């Protein structure tokens, strides 16, 4: 079923390097990945795993010292990896592939009114005149659920709260009706209640507009709610990918196990939280074998010598670990993440729906 779906972005053997202080660093190492049309594709990993760099290549926003060393990115019949000039990028960046960043204040100009910043995009990409653009800007603000948009359109970014600024950034991103929306940790700077609002907003908008979402985050809780498929990144490579159910219920790579077991919800009373020892690899020089091997409890000799190939677990689920080799010893995931759903079910509030009914009843009696 997966194979029949239409591919939106197809990445083939992509490698990205950076030159820093005379050192060449391989930050993205040979990624091959298909992203399907209309799906929500989440990329999970620690900071420094290269997840942001990977998506920056889709819009040509690599830093000046970064370059694509090999591979191709196929998007609507074009190879984005070959693009060099801004002129080439113009019809793609912002128009077909839009990005939302972590900190909304860096995306907004503090000196211009909100309305003008949305209108700018509309006039540039959709060729609207001033009047049309203004009407459309108000309409967009209404769609991202900003209360009283006619008035708020004249406000400056500092007058908005963090959550509302992120809504404005979403409005700007959606102004051109993009085919792909890249969300680069859009909720990390926000608190929990606002986070859940922004997530449901993105989900609702996706239902209406049918765009493809690429969602970058390190929070596994967020991923569970929003993603259709998940890719786990480590050391510049995708080390495991599959549907959300695959990743959460049948994780195969030791790094995914480690990520899942460091969830605070899984801590038993009185015991320490599990965490991943050591640091992510530095990209200076070549990495021999599996990048995760030095931090891996289950590492075998071969992990230090040779990189594992992608092993197929099911039609949708792939993982890059030697543990899946038929010759490898059978290793079970750590005890803490077995029966994940039962354990997590024990930590959440028993029946939020019942209590909510209680609430509405009480509200009625007030009236």
């Amino acid at each position: 079923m997966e194979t029949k779906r239409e591919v939106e972005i197809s990445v083939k053997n992509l490698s990205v390097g950076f030159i820093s202080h005379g050192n060449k660093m391989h930050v993205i190492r040979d990624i091959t990945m298909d992203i399907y049309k209309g799906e929500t594709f989440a990329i999970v990993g620690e900071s420094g795993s290269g997840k942001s760099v990977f998506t920056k290549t889709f819009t040509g926003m690599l830093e000046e010292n970064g370059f694509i060393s090999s591979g191709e990115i196929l998007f609507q019949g074009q190879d984005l990896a070959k693009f060099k000039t801004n002129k080439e990028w113009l019809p793609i960046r912002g128009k077909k592939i839009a990005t939302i960043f972590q900190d909304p204040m860096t995306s907004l100009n503090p000196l211009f009114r909100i309305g003008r910043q949305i209108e700018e995009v509309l006039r540039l990409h959709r060729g609207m005149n001033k009047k049309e653009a203004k009407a459309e800007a108000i309409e967009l603000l209404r769609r991202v659920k900003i209360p009283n948009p006619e008035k708020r359109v004249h406000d400056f970014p500092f007058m908005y709260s963090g959550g509302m600024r992120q809504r404005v950034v979403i409005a700007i991103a959606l102004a051109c009706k993009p085919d792909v929306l890249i969300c680069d940790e859009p909720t990390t700077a926000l608190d929990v209640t606002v986070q859940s609002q922004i997530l449901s907003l993105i989900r609702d908008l996706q239902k209406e507009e049918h765009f493809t979402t690429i969602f970058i985050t390190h929070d596994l809780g967020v991923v569970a709610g929003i993603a259709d498929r998940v890719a786990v990144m480590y050391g510049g490579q995708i080390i495991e990918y599959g549907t959300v159910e695959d990743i959460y219920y049948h994780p195969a790579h030791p790094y995914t196990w480690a990520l899942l077991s460091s969830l605070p919800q899984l801590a038993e009373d009185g015991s320490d939280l599990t965490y991943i020892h050591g640091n992510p690899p530095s990209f200076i020089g070549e990495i021999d074998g599996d990048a995760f091997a030095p931090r891996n409890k289950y590492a075998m000799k071969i992990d230090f010598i040779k990189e594992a190939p992608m092993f197929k677990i099911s039609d949708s689920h792939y993982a890059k670990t030697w543990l899946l080799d038929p010759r490898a010893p059978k290793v079970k995931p750590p005890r803490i993440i077995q029966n994940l759903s039962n354990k997590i079910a024990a930590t959440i509030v028993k029946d939020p729906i019942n209590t909510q009914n209680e609430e509405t009843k009480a509200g009625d009696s007030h009236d």
Partner: protein
Amino acid sequence: MIKVKRTPEKEEQLRKEKQYRTEKKFEFEPLEKNTDKKILVSCRDVKIGFYNHNLFTPIVKKLNLDIYEGEVLGLVGESGSGKTTIGRAIMRMIPIQGGVITYKGDRISGRLKQNEKRELKKKVQMIFQDPSACLNDRSNVDYIVSEGLRAFHLYDSEEDRLEKVSTAIKEVGLRTEHLSRYPHEFSGGQRQRIGIARAVIMNPELIIADEPISALDVSIRAQVLNLIRKFQIEKKMTVLFIAHDLSVVHYISDRIAVIYHGNIVEIAPSNRLFEKPLHPYTKALLTAIPIPDPKMEREKEIVTYDESVHDYSIEKPEFVEIEKGHFVLGSPSEIKKYKKILKEDKKM
């Protein structure tokens, strides 16, 4: 001249305010009834606000809170709810406009003598949210960590100081060769560890941890949490843990206080709060936590909190202990309703 006649309540209030300002020692009844826990910090009728263009904006209106010795108290609320303000007020980083804060019975708010302030700074330490903003970029780790020791002359000789610094830095999982480095050479998690080392080296009685983990990654988050817990248990420190993420707070805290718009709406032992949240805002916060499980997360219903469910026009809300150690803010009729819920729960 017209003399305004004061009501007895007003008189009482003014008398109290004056008492809060002038007296040095306070002996408050603990808020929780029949408890034998020792109180470290108590806040009574604390009012904090800021002047914004000469216009007073209250942030915290009337705060009553006890922090027990040796516990971890989680303070949870959304941004702008005043949780950081409370932490800072205890640290004396911002003045309070009314009420009193006491530390082991001594007043620590308002005017104090210089040596009293110094004593307090020695006992109370803070861990900040953004590890890159709270460390001095121009000084090395050795200096950053030992700054407190220098300020209070807590070492006999240079060797003694160095030994103290290296034990502290080893305790947080860094190495002694890191001492000569500068903050920018470290990753976010390591920087946060330096921040913790700096706080812990003073052997404080109270640590105020102001969102120490919200700027960190999942795995590093776990390391930092473990570290704070380790120190809390080993050195028997009291921790005021401020955060917006209830799942983290649940793991680390003994008790949790939920704060909304400057009012504490619910305090309960942490397991109890998760089992039986009573205040609608607490429920909304609990449902907002993303569940790391695809099926449950999708089926979850998000409860949004709307202030208009409360009708406080006739009845004023009060902060009531509804069961042992479990406080909730509500009008008398709401309290009645909450009690009914608890009773039904017991029957089951």
